[in-house]
């Protein structure tokens, strides 16, 4: 009765997803279009087969995502007949908030964290799934699978409910909410192996291709549209690159790579010396920065 670790993770995640659907009145799945979201969506489809997923999906659009991400998002929503909400912080758009003009910290706070809170409040969601994994970042390693948020969506790391066995405490008080991370125990390699085995569609940006990039602060930034101003000393070059993780394009560094299919990505990953979040500028804008963002209500 072989039940390898990936099968264990799969069943564990399905159990968590069903638990949320059973115990909360208005859950939503945060869909970020990345590989982890794709795996989470795939698991949700399995959890409720042959039926439809009994909750909505939400994408918080910062308006600075790669064009290919948005295209992929709409295609998946159509193909799987998903109930997808796209939320944009229009106040931020009106004030022309962006990563280049305002810096990563302000941009992420207004267009991502504030925007997410707006959407959760607007639709009165009491539970929101996120695709975060504990191996991604140090403060995430300490987060529960069911992570409670107060009325202001704040996370209190010192006051988390103990989580024993698979007996999740899903009781919340009025106006409180929960973030749920069904992929908590997955590692980056697990995610790729699962994508490969299950043939899960992902955004083509993960695969190497010739793309126009500039070198800025030792990072390769893709020129996805003309909002990225090119400084005099910078030169747009066509390079064979891919992305290990996806976010706002001016904040997400590409890596030079020849990996054009999942097998090659996995091989590259096994040989890599850097973590996937290395390309994420938002993680290092202050010491303990992810933890501070999470306490403010970021995922």
């Amino acid at each position, binding site marked *: *009765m072989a039940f*390898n670790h990936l099968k264990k993770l799969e069943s564990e995640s399905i159990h968590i997803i069903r638990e949320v659907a059973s115990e909360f009145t208005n859950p939503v799945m945060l869909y970020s279009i990345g590989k982890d979201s794709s795996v989470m969506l795939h698991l949700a489809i399995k959890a409720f087969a042959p*039926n439809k997923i009994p909750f909505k999906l939400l994408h918080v659009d910062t308006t600075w995502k790669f064009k290919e991400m948005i295209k992929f998002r709409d295609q998946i929503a159509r193909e799987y007949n998903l109930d997808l909400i796209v939320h944009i912080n229009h106040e931020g758009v009106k004030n022309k908030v962006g990563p280049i003009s305002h810096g990563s910290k302000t941009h992420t706070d207004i267009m991502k964290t504030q925007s997410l809170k707006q959407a959760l409040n607007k639709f009165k969601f009491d539970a929101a799934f996120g695709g975060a994994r504990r191996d991604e970042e140090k403060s995430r390693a300490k987060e529960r699978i069911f992570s409670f948020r107060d009325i202001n969506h704040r996370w209190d790391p*010192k006051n988390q409910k103990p989580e024993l066995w698979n*007996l999740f405490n899903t009781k919340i008080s009025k106006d409180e909410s929960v973030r749920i991370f069904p992929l908590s125990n997955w*590692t980056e390699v697990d995610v790729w192996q699962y994508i490969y085995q299950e043939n899960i569609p992902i955004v083509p940006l993960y695969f190497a291709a010739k793309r126009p990039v500039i070198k800025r602060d030792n990072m390769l930034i893709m020129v996805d549209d003309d909002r990225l101003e090119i400084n005099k000393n910078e030169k747009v070059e066509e390079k064979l690159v891919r992305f290990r993780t996806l976010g706002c394009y001016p904040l997400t560094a590409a890596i030079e790579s020849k990996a054009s299919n999942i097998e090659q990505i996995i091989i590259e990953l096994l040989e890599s010396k850097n973590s996937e979040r290395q390309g994420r500028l938002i993680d290092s804008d202050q010491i303990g920065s992810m*933890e501070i963002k999470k306490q403010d209500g970021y995922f």
Partner: protein
Amino acid sequence: MDIETFFKKQNFKNQLKILTCGSVDDGKSTLIGRLLFDSKSIYSDQLSQTKFESEKYGTQGKEIDLALLIDGLQAEREQGITIDVAYRYFETDKCKFIIADTPGHQEYTRNMATGASNSDVGIILIDSTKGILDQTKRHTFILSLLEVNHVVIAINKMDLVNYDKNVYDEIIKSFEIISKNFNFNSKKYIPLSALVGDNVFTKSDNMPWYKNETLISTLEKFEVSKSYIDEKFSMPVQWVNRSSSDFRGYSGTISSGKINVNDEITVVPSGEKAKIKKILTPDGNSDSSFENQAVTISLDKEIDISRGDLITSDLKNIKIADQFSAHIIWMHKDAMLPERNYIFRLINSYVSGKITKLEHKININSYEKIPAKSLELNDIGYCKIALSKSTFFKSYSNNNQLGSFVIIDQFNNLTVGAGMIDYELRRSTNISWHEMTIDKKKRSIMNSQKPCALWFTGLSGSGKSTIANILEQKLHRLNKRTYLLDGDNVRHGLNKDLGFTDADRVENIRRVAEVSKLMTDAGLITLVSFISPFKSERKMARDLFEKDEFLEIFVDTPLQECEKRDPKGLYKKARSGKLKNFTGIDSDYETPISPEIKLQTLSKNPEELADEILNYMKKNNII
């Protein structure tokens, strides 16, 4: 490496969940840092960040402080201690590991229990320079209590004792003594240095006297320790999958055994039987499924099944009861009090209930059982629990998932405790309330009377029994079927084991109230003549009855008058101190505030008073 070899290897990898525990400064974080570092699970950007932080907060001078990789939260980096459970991931060629890193501080025992609840193996770290500490004993006990059956005793910091074999041998001797009463399936002792790396991944040249395996080879050899695959099939229903078409399936994660299409199953609690029609696994339709798989099954006929039910072929071993005994670990600063209401989360259901009795608390350092009235934060106790309705379970040692529960505060929803079921209490096991065909109404019609309870309360000597006796005769003459329950008489039989302390008076009234309820249910007009001095017990009795079925009759005779009458000479005895706890003298009588009938006995004789009650009953269509 080519991808085919990689996948082949990956597909055979086991998953092992391990827990590291030990006292503060025994080097847990350093050990985990070492495991991650040596398994090459640390990327260079994470390493350089740690280097940067090592210079700021580190304790290893210019060297990289591996513990800082682990102590993720900023507060911990600043305080230099681990404050919560953190999960870490690494793999070797043979196995994927998930490590729960739990703090060693006494006040954080609850976190360790949390980590232990999902672990296959426990690593107990012992600082070779300090030997066994109270924390070591505490953690060994918790591992045993939560049935983490395999322990590895990692005797750390051997570099600081010159790799001396005698130190190692002494610690083994002491650990054997503290663990002699625990049932671990295996105990492995490994001398190591997490800081330097001796015997973690590579065999140490510094300890040639140690002939056994390194920590990592030892861990790789563990099979998953807990499996219920050889038990019969059980699956708690988590979600009912209904679609617009005619599909109706029941989703859940199988908690024990195997299941095949066409197998017969029983649904608990309804007891209905059916056969398995289809099994939908994460890999699609299948003829069979097994333990730990999240599946959706459909049955060959329609039965009413909802979340919280159990689908099983193990009826023999499934217990159904509303009372059980269990070990409880208390996890909140507000103490656990017996008789207080809490929410109990069992597998797929929430039930309200209370701890009815705290049998004893366990001194976690000496393992002694000590009497206690409450459980404080991090206390472990053995308790009796009563739930508001029956539920199914197994004992924790038979199945961890079906035998565990968490306790939730009903006001703030916090998780305040966790428990492991020992065994069901027989008192109401397998007793369900049978709805009888002949009910109270039918009996009432046959008797041409409306059954009710006439509850006489008042001081001793107030005239309760005299009036009740006359009333019963009058009712009898009217062809009414009656019964009189008298305090003194009941104390000769049913309640002869009870005295006159407050606790016994409460129990006295509880029993009589239950008996009068049965008699009323049998269709009788039941007269109850009891001092019943406390408001709360009179309310308890009243709450057993339907509205209009319970008449409280306060026989209002002043204490001086009762004392003057003193028909049994009891007041005299009480006044002289020969009789303790006598109502009105040294035990309270709480005057009824709004009884249905209040009888003033000074101006009327018992005949007239009985008629007064009779008139009330006629007026209210009772007779």
